């Protein structure tokens, strides 16, 4: 209630800035256009991974002629907004940028990323197909080098499982049965929650079930959010929510943190980076958690999805594409780079040669020595998935449509929410002029 009373000055000013903004944080990169071969090249690098400045120190020491400056970002979404603003303004973008896989089509569509297939195309063999596909979008171009991947994993409280005499769920049927038993034994306890706030989580679950929400066929996009595979996932979670054996509150709230810590939430369908989050949210329960492969739809042919993960890209404004590509290749494929990523930045590298760096389990699960072999297995069975150019629209539609469904606790509302998502995403693409079918 204490806003300025000049109508909308804030919003309008923000709109103005969309064209005039020039962050000024990357003067170094744009100022040194005519660099002689012998001269030192300055690169700026936008990233939000922790301790990335320390990782980059290793590069700077070994490569005195290419100096990289890390510019710490708040996170994936704000960094993309900033980058798109700089691209529209014509200056102010960094040379190198961390980009989440699902944002790459949006960035490519805005002409924000450079094609580095000539400089780094040879790295294909170093990455699993699903990660490589995410940075090529299935084309001949290359819009970045995969950095980390986020294969989904399941975490559960071993003490609760032991007390009730139940087994680690191998299939989603097992998971539902376990959820029922846990909730029956203690009406306050849940094996998980359906989070309408985390579209990336639901996308990963759908990926595991075999969905790929977007697709490219020649020069035409297709949208398949409301396909049979995703419907299966929506119906499954809708049923559990209606039954009341799974909670319907969003993740990443103070409420959810408290629930993990006080033993109300005793399981989490998450990703390889889960232990880091649990370390902060559920510190009172350290030593009682275990990581497992995701429950399966068909135990005979295991599959998985991703939640999270990003690539390192060169922006279209960079004047030093070759040097930038060289740095990116070092960061994500050189043993020294990978080692630094794992130990300093706590990421799970996408590179297939990362096992040497992944020796001791994350500190929250220090007893589980097989953590990284489960993670490797999870990554290996990840299904391909294509992101579209309007992931943001689909994701915000997920928030609204599934928020309503989760609140109503009616199973029938879940597939209906999926239909809304499909409809919103498709009409947005048609309206913008994309060639699209589906």
């Amino acid at each position, binding site marked *: *209630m204490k806003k300025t009373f000049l109508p909308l*000055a804030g919003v309008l000013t923000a709109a103005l800035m969309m064209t005039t903004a020039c962050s000024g944080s990357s003067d170094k990169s744009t100022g040194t256009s005519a660099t002689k071969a012998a001269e030192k090249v300055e690169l700026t690098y936008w990233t939000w991974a922790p301790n990335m400045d320390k990782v980059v120190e290793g590069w700077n020491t070994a490569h005195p002629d290419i100096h990289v400056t890390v510019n710490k970002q708040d996170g994936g979404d704000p960094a993309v907004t900033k980058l798109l603003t700089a691209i529209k303004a014509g200056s102010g973008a960094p040379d190198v940028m961390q980009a989440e896989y699902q944002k790459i089509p949006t960035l490519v569509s805005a002409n924000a990323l450079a094609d580095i297939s000539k400089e780094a195309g040879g790295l294909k063999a170093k990455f699993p197909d699903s990660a490589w596909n995410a940075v090529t979008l299935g084309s001949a171009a290359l819009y970045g080098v995969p950095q980390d991947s986020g294969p989904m994993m399941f975490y559960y409280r071993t003490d609760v499982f032991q007390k009730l005499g139940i087994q680690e769920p191998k299939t989603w049927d097992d998971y539902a049965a376990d959820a029922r038993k846990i909730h029956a034994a203690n009406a306050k306890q849940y094996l998980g929650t359906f989070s309408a706030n985390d579209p990336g989580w639901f996308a990963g679950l759908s990926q595991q079930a075999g969905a790929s929400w977007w697709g490219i066929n020649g*020069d035409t996009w297709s949208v398949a959010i409301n396909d049979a595979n995703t419907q299966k996932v929506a119906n499954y979670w809708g049923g559990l929510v209606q039954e009341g054996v799974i909670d319907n509150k969003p993740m990443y709230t103070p409420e959810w943190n408290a629930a993990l810590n006080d033993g109300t939430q005793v399981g989490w369908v998450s990703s390889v980076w889960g232990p880091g989050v649990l370390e902060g949210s559920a510190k009172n329960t350290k030593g009682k958690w275990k990581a497992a492969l995701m429950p399966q739809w068909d135990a005979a042919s295991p599959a998985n999805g991703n939640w999270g993960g990003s690539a390192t890209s060169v922006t279209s404004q960079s004047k030093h594409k070759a040097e930038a590509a060289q740095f990116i290749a070092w960061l994500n494929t050189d043993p020294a780079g990978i080692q630094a990523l794992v130990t300093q930045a706590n990421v799970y590298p996408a590179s297939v040669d990362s096992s040497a760096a992944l020796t001791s389990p994350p500190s929250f699960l220090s007893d589980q020595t097989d953590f990284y072999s489960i993670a490797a297995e999870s990554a290996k069975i990840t299904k391909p998935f294509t992101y579209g150019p309007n992931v943001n629209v689909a994701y915000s539609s997920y928030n609204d449509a599934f928020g309503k469904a989760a609140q109503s606790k009616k199973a029938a509302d879940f597939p209906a929410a999926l239909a809304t998502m499909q409809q919103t995403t498709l009409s947005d693409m048609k309206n913008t002029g994309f060639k699209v079918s589906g």
Partner: protein
Amino acid sequence: MTTLTAFPTSARTPRVESRGGRKAGAPYLFLAPALILFVLFLLAPILYSVYLSLRRVKVSGLGLGLGSRHEVWAGFSNYVRSLTDPDFLPSVERVFAYGMIVVPTMLGLALLMALLLDAGRTRVGTFSRTAIFLPYAVPAVVASLLWGFLYLPRVSPITDVLTHLGITPPDLLSDSWVLYAVANIAVWGGTGFNMIVLYTALRAIPTDLFEAARLDGASDIQIAWRIKIPIVLPSLIMTFVFSLIATLQVFAEPMTLRPLSNTISTTWTPLMKVYRDAFTRNDVYSAAATSVVIALATFVLSFGFLRLVGNRAFNQED
């Protein structure tokens, strides 16, 4: 809180004597800073928004290659899309209902407290005045986080106390309560400011008016109702217009509470829809159209209301 007591008197500060203009250009020179800032930060952005609202991006094919994106004239299609968006009307209705709760409650409380403080004139008054005003100094985002913690059952001390007393508290972020939960934050944050505005207006009333009334046998309530409230009516109208505008622009509170529950959508208020379109959907054009619509509605409502009651209220002083 010395700045507060200085607030009303500043209007009465005697004007600095004019030194007599030497050049005809002098007034413009003095006006220039204000004018330049006005043009740069208000007029230009508004005009630019209007321009943007008439544009749109057109993509060809897959939209991936170079130059597959063009900005073209859109006519009024952004306005049509924005006004026919199925989420737009519900968000307007919601803000209307929200305003019906917030404005009367907040101004009623502010007036009541101002009258009580003015009637009491005790030492407790200074403390109460500061205490009531203090929430206004808390940024809306911080206030929303603070209340958010109080609303969430598992982390809320209120829930703890009520449960111990054997009462089952309602889920304040559920569909049936969330509007009141958001309104409560606004009332909590806004009452103090409005109270101070009304209180300073009350303090400006010459005391002989009350003394005369008291000699005639008027009670405190009669004095309040027949003398004080009519005299502070212009201030009341001003606070009403400010509250109305703030209501139309409600944003920070629902935006901060949104991730805590399923009940607040990304288009819960019109301004949230603007934010979603501009920064989540990356479509500044339709966001600009919606903001122009909101700005017009704000303008029409505020000035319409002033025309309706303003003249009558302000003329009383003559």
